């Protein structure tokens, strides 16, 4: 019997998964993995603890040079700084994939959550991570601005390292919506 391919394709739309359900499935899989010794999961939990600690001190970093592009100096370790919560355990792969750096059109993946940038360059990365009941978004551009979508739980943004080699990270409050093109430093601190 000939295959009614068009009919079957039409029915395919109904089989597209629900993104929320996918997160749930990954979480269940992670929970299942956690019942057995698992080096990767253990590593993630260590990273979670490290990141949470970093978060508390991130805002202390200073940058006297203001609104320059995101730039990571030679041999500087690019760090994602955000809090990893229970829901993220199940989405470790997706979260890690978001640490993507682009340089001159060449894309490299930062894995796992840190990578040494070998050359001075402008990097771009986009991070989406879930935390608790909310969603943390970090949108960064390789230009001199950051355009987060606000109204969500705290967004942690890190810019290029300061002259001392520290990467500066700041918390953008959930109720802060920045117009595209607004340098984040100005938006947070009311002008530098």
């Amino acid at each position, binding site marked *: 019997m*000939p*295959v009614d*391919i*068009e009919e*079957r*394709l*039409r*029915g*395919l*739309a109904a*089989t*597209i*998964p*629900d*993104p*929320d359900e*996918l997160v749930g499935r990954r979480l269940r899989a992670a929970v299942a993995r956690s019942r057995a010794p698992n080096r990767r999961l253990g590593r993630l939990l260590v990273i979670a603890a490290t990141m949470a600690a970093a978060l508390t001190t991130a805002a202390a970093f200073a940058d006297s040079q203001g609104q320059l592009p995101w730039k990571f100096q030679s041999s500087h370790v690019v760090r994602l700084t955000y809090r990893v919560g229970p829901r993220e355990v199940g989405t470790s*792969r*997706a979260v890690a*994939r*978001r640490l*993507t750096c682009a340089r001159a059109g060449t*894309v490299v*993946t930062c894995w796992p959550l840190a990578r040494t940038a070998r050359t001075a360059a402008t990097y771009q990365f*986009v991070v*989406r991570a879930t935390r608790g009941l909310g969603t943390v*978004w970090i*949108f960064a*551009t390789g230009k001199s601005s950051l*355009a987060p*979508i*606000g*109204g*969500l739980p705290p967004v942690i943004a890190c810019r290029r390292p300061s002259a001392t080699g520290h990467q500066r990270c700041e918390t953008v409050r959930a*109720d*802060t*919506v920045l*117009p*595209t093109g607004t340098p984040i430093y100005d938006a947070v601190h009311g002008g530098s």
Partner: protein
Amino acid sequence: MAVETDRELVAAARAGRPDAFDGLVARHWKPAWKAAYALTASHVAAEDAVQEAFVKALGRLETFDDAKPFGPWLRRIAVNCALDELRSRRAARAREQRLDPPSAQEPSEDGWLWAALAELRLDRRAPIVLHHVLGYSFDEVAELLRLPRGTVASRASRGLAELRHSLEVLDAR
């Protein structure tokens, strides 16, 4: 409190109200993601595409014609972002890392069809997914892909023939 319409949320976002664009994200994330997923067959690539789409939408909000509905506008951006994802090296990596479509994990007709679609060349898969799965008209697909309508239709037709052949071979087993 009355639920705000998309038009009201867009106007509020333009005016700088903090939660307005968040409202649009919450409302339109899922349909945009589904469209992107249909093209990429990868939840990771779909998330990237939709995230990129919202960034673009935010940047273009001033130029958005609010006489038109926001959802289809956003979905078009998402579809284009998904196509960009597929074309890029980044997407190549995402395909390597993709999760199989859900039904492919438990072999079924739908699972095989998703797999067969994923095997098609992009220039054939895109018109098929956009037209036959997502329901865009050929004119809309032509606009999205920036191709003549006839080219879109013929590529879809060739892709369908290829799919049909694959599935007939499968059914005959």
